[in-house]
């Protein structure tokens, strides 16, 4: 079974600084997807960024980028120029590629609470 681990229960960063959130996962699959979701106090789950495992290039979305290390099964999220609105719980999630018995199932990590200090 796939597992996702976020070893940092809490992180904090100063506004305008950069912070990196860690995520590791375990899978026997060679193709899969990885996601970072943000959950603000409203508790809605908002997609931040996604990475296809077959792509070598790390995904980037504006101030958000990932460091995907497939061999190490590591998928960290870097937030540059942090803003107060970035404060939230961040979840790393894994999804298998379509097909088989686990199509579409997202497996989440435990989450990391990010605090942004003004």
């Amino acid at each position, binding site marked *: 079974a796939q597992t996702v681990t976020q070893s940092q229960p809490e992180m904090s960063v100063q506004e305008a600084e950069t912070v990196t959130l860690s995520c590791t996962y375990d899978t026997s699959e060679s193709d899969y997807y990885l996601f970072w979701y943000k959950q603000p106090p409203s508790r809605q789950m908002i997609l931040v960024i996604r990475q296809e495992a077959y792509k070598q290039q790390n995904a980037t979305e504006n101030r958000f980028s990932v460091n995907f290390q497939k061999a190490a099964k590591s998928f960290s999220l870097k937030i540059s120029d942090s803003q107060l609105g970035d404060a939230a719980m961040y979840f790393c*999630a894994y999804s298998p590629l379509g097909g088989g018995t686990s199509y579409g199932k997202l497996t989440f990590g435990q989450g990391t609470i990010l605090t942004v200090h003004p």
Partner: protein
Amino acid sequence: EPEVTQTPSHQVTQMGQEVILRCVPISNHLYFYWYRQILGQKVEFLVSFYNNEISEKSEIFDDQFSVERPDGSNFTLKIRSTKLEDSAMYFCASSEALLNRLIQETQYFGPGTRLLVL
């Protein structure tokens, strides 16, 4: 921008009562999911649904749970006889169907329904 909607936003019920949580997925999406998040814990997969049948379900999704797509827009989760431990935030999600079913598309989440069982 299209979004997943869920009703009600909050529901309080007595143990043993039936509840129905409703979701309206994004209109061109054909894959639907339910997840739950017990307070302070990670988000857990419950069930996935495609082509009017369950694609996969977790061990949490026992006989007390059922899902239905009663019409062209709604997707419901029914808990037949609620237990105290069913108290959680329930998230609906949907993703787009592609001709090539082997490609996993991003799941977009609704704002959640907070269920409290007394």
